[in-house]
């Protein structure tokens, strides 16, 4: 196997031997995970299993104690300009939306392109309106985040991430803070993205989404990746005891 072959074998995002502690708690235990371009990886598992920490480590919102995280073959820089530049290429959608509260919906989407990419204001605005149109909240562009429903805010957050033309988007429990009737509208936007080939890492409890949109399901428990499989295999025939228990609990009702 030649060098270039090895390179292409490493995914767009590659984690090797990643460990992290919160004090005594070992939250990530020797994590190895590779995510290919265009792949949708859903990370599921009981709360406290480390799945959010894993997601946040990929753009270094959480530092790691040991191991390597490569993005597009480059190791994550530890601080400063290089890290900021990398983060610009990694979209992030948070559980609590985190829209900039003092900016309008339109400004929320244009802020990154304007301040980080130094895009021309006219272009940034035009692109932002296209994205808001795509996620179905263009008519709210001049409002402030607090005036929108949770579902609308989360769709704006997705548009904000897309505006940076990211290589990959991380979703940290994007629907967990939403009222049930709003979950679907956000999931539909995400399914759409997946279909268009966006590389996505999605931490979620939405098994329906995992079945429809995921290429691969990663099951975590107690800081470890316990099982990795296609959704079909994982949901119908989980091999590990812990995955069986977990699925038994959530799929019962």
């Amino acid at each position: 196997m030649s060098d270039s072959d090895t390179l292409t074998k490493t995914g767009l995002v590659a984690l090797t031997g990643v460990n992290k502690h919160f004090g005594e708690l070992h939250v990530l235990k020797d994590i190895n995970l590779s995510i290919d371009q265009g792949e949708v990886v859903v990370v599921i598992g009981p709360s406290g299993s480390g799945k959010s920490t894993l997601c946040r480590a990929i753009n270094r919102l959480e530092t790691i104690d040991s191991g390597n995280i490569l993005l597009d073959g480059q190791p994550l820089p530890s601080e400063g300009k290089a890290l900021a530049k990398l983060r610009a290429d990694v979209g992030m959608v948070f559980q609590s939306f985190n829209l900039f509260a003092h900016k309008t919906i339109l400004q929320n989407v244009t802020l990154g392109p304007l301040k980080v990419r130094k895009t021309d204001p006219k272009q940034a605005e035009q692109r932002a309106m296209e994205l808001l149109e795509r996620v179905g909240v263009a008519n709210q562009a001049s409002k402030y985040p607090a005036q929108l429903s949770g579902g609308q805010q989360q769709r704006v957050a997705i548009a904000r991430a897309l505006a940076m033309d990211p290589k990959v988007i991380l979703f940290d429990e994007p629907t967990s803070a939403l009222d049930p009737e709003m979950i679907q509208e956000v999931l539909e936007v995400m399914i759409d993205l997946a279909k268009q080939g966006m590389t996505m890492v999605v931490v979620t409890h939405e098994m329906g989404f995992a079945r429809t949109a995921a290429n691969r399901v990663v099951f975590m428990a107690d800081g470890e990746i316990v099982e990795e499989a296609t959704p079909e295999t994982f949901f119908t025939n989980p091999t590990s005891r812990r995955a069986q228990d977990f699925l038994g609990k959530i799929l019962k009702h």
Partner: protein
Amino acid sequence: MFSVLTDNWPLFRDGFWLTIRLFLVSGVLSLVFGTALGAFRVSPVPALRGFGTGYVNILRNTPLTLVFAFLFFGAAKMDLALPNPFWTAVGALTIYTSAFICEVVRSGVNTIAPGQAEAARAVGMSFVQVLTIVVLPQAFRAIIPPLMSVLIALLKNTTIAAGFSVVEAGSIPAAMSERGENQLVTLFWITIGFLILIVPLIFLQRWAERRTAVA
């Protein structure tokens, strides 16, 4: 009673004019340095955080008179060239007030949910951008009332400069005493003078609070 003021008008006028200049120059400089110190205290660089913490702990706990004494006498002892008394007084007031403004800024930053800064970092903003574009504009609303208290304290603190041969409003009583004027009436007029200076600050605060009020 009015004659005490009118007969000595130049003394009052010049004294208060110097007070106003001391206040404005020290106020602006303290806002700049204090905000920078506040940024140090929330920065990701441990050395900067350490510096900010050390600065605040030392300066906030030193009596202002001592800060003045260090600059006016200490610096002279060490053969350091001193600027004129006005700028030395500005220096002492700024060094002291910056520590308080730093803490006001930091408390304001702490009122903003961490998710705001995280989201800003996630789109690739630098530390300075996160602070100036996302965090501080939102923190400003919470900062206004305590900030005004610090600025009003600064205005009153300028009177310490009188003890160091700066002829601001605080030096008026001594001069009036030499002229044999009634001390009580003198103090009354000085109090009125400070109240008049503080009124614009109160209106500034009201205006800023209204402007930043949540819709």
